[in-house]
């Protein structure tokens, strides 16, 4: 297939040229162990520090507040479990949302089995959840509050700032963790304004490499590690640094440019896509109006997600299922939004990146029209 239109950027992104170049340089010449005290090691250490500064600057953090991990999942696991264990003497209540990624949700399940009390807030019909409900859930024994910044299925933005304020007002000793993996480099934010104590990002969602993530830990905040070993990254993420991955992540972060300007450009493309799709009554948009424009969740009721994915895939267009759905179990997010089952079972997620072109989206819209025709949808 010579025509590849990749619209699954929320799952992962292809490497950008800048990252590719940085990684090639890393694997060929920057091979020293960053912990080594000779020239080769020092060279690798210096490069890592440059990458750290680049990754930190996108979120408005100081470089020394950012620690590289070996994946976004490991960073989320460490944030959640490490924070809960560090504060368990002050209380065992945790507040989170019912729509977290498994790397957060299943970590909370594990804590629950060990005696923590976990409150999971449900999203309202617009996808976002109610700050008042949150306020009710908080008490003086609440030691951790965790919410994703951008929902990975629909693209809605959680009111993280409001959450942080609510925590302060309730006088809870809670740390605030934000899983910003879908928001980093797409939605402009500063860790200080968000009020986050811990914040997770990942390299491969912004045209960086797979196998590298980072955790922001606000200066003065201490959490436990969940990995034991050589003490790399201030003891948080032991294991020899993934130097090519980290340098690739750094280069991808530098290549982002102005996140705000890019957002405006992507929004314009998304709006054009939505107006093309609105011509076709068979296509229903599931993402809320105020969703981050990088994610468009849509349904062609009557065509199961997997069938539409296969159809488009045969034509070199790649999208993913719109609902994190295990067999016989529908996505909570879409159920909570009050969507009928036929719409949930047909949901696909079209996810853009800063490199997605208007032309690609036009081709996609035409292919979707053809799919509706070929798959003979009953209206």
């Amino acid at each position, binding site marked *: 297939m010579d025509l590849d239109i990749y619209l699954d950027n929320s799952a992962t992104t292809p490497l950008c040229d800048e990252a590719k170049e940085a990684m090639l340089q890393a694997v060929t010449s920057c091979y020293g162990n960053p912990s080594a005290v000779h020239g080769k090691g020092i060279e690798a250490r210096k490069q890592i520090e440059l990458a750290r500064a680049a990754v930190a600057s996108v979120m408005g953090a100081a470089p020394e507040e950012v620690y590289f991990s070996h994946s976004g999942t490991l960073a989320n696991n460490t944030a959640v479990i490490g924070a809960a264990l560090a504060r368990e003497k002050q209380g065992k209540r945790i507040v989170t949302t019912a729509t977290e990624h498994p790397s957060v949700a299943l970590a909370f399940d594990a804590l629950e089995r060990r005696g923590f009390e976990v409150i999971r807030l449900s999203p309202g019909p617009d996808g976002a959840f109610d700050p008042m409900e949150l306020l009710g859930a908080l008490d003086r024994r609440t030691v951790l509050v965790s919410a994703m910044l951008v929902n990975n299925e629909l693209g809605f933005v959680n009111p993280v700032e409001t959450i942080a304020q609510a925590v302060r007002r309730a006088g809870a000793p809670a740390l605030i963790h934000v899983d910003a993996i879908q928001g980093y480099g797409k939605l402009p934010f500063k860790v200080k304004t968000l009020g986050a104590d811990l914040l997770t990002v990942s390299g491969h969602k912004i045209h960086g490499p797979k196998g590298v993530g980072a955790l922001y830990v606000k200066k003065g905040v201490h959490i436990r590690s969940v990995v034991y070993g050589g003490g790399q990254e201030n003891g948080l993420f032991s294991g020899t640094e993934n130097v090519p991955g980290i340098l690739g992540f750094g280069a991808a972060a530098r290549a982002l440019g102005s996140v705000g300007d890019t957002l405006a450009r992507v929004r314009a493309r998304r709006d054009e896509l939505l107006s093309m799709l609105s011509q076709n009554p068979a296509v229903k948009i599931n993402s809320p109006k105020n969703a981050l424009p990088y994610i468009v969740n849509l349904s062609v009721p009557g065509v199961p997600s997997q069938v539409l994915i296969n*159809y488009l895939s045969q034509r070199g267009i790649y999208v993913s299922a719109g609902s994190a759905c295990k067999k016989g179990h529908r996505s909570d997010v879409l159920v909570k939004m009050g969507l009928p089952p036929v719409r949930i079972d047909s949901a696909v997620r079209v996810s853009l990146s800063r490199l997605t072109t208007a032309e690609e989206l036009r081709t996609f819209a035409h292919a979707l029209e053809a799919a509706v025709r070929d798959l003979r949808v009953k209206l």
Partner: protein
Amino acid sequence: MKEIILIKDGELALKGLNRSTFEDVLIKNMKEKIRSLGEFRFVKSQSTITVEPQSEDVDLDEAVARIGKVFGIVGISRAAVCEKEIGAIVQTAYDYLKNELAFAGTFKVKAKRSDKKFPYDSPAICDEVGGFLLSKLRGLKVDVHNPDVTVTVEVREKYAYIHATQLPGAGGMPTGTGGRACILISGGIDSPVAAYMIAKRGVKLTAVHFASPPYTSELAEMKVHELLGKVSAWSGRINLFTVHFTALQEAIRDYCPEEMFTVTMRRIMMKVASRIAVWQGADALITGESLGQVASQTIHALKCTDECAALPVFRPCIGMDKSEIIEISRKIDAFDISIRPYEDCCTVFTPRHPRTRPTPEYAREVEALIPEEERLIEEAVKSARLLVIDAYND
């Protein structure tokens, strides 16, 4: 220490004059399975086949595991080979079995002497070997009735063989002694089990899988490849034909009443598979159907689909409960693959309320609603792509 594998063949003993032919097939099948591990020599003698590696670095653990999946074998032993001299036999028995005996409470020694010129008779061999092991291994006791370990010494033509535990073989009949049959495989739990069960009776396998892109995923096809890989570890090479079934599925959806979707699809599958089977020289079809498991597997539905087959249809799972099928599925290591959740042909266009008591007359009427059915069937047969599946050979 030189080690070999001793094979006891099973039901073959019953087959009189055919025995030698059957043993030759068995040896050929074993060769196929372990060829990629190195050179081996196969020797038939009395009721045993010996498999001798021709070099030191052969992975004998893997060879035993693979031979354990060759049909037509009842027992497998690994044996140490030594000179026919009582001192060597005693020492080899100790060296070879000391680790196994270290954790056994009781043992006994069994001797077989096919070379009657050997100066020690069987009881004397037992005394020598048993006495030496008792003197060397503290805490070990003799129990002739119910020992933890039985040490067997076989004094044969050229060498003596020493072995302990006999592993069970795969049973059944050597593949290829029972003709060829064609399995209709979907990717679920039942069809790989059915394929295994019929292969076990000496039958070679051809397989037909129906793919309906875009309604079914490439992942479903890959799943079938993996499942047949597991079956082929037992059955040997399988020729898989993947049929492009979309046009027929869409025709059924467009022209037939919804309650008859599945039965009509199964009828057409039987027709397509029959043609491929006949063309491939198969003399029967195999399905994983189990009576009453789903609407298309009621006695009435089977009556409707059976008449479309041009060959006898073997349904070895027909009287089994799901739990019994799963037990075999686990045994052949297919279960974890089978339960991966991809759509297959049987689940596309599933009717909400399928008819459970269709009649053949009605089924024929419904099928006749499809325009140009014969042309579509012909095209489906022609679309079949061959993939050779063999777990142990490229």
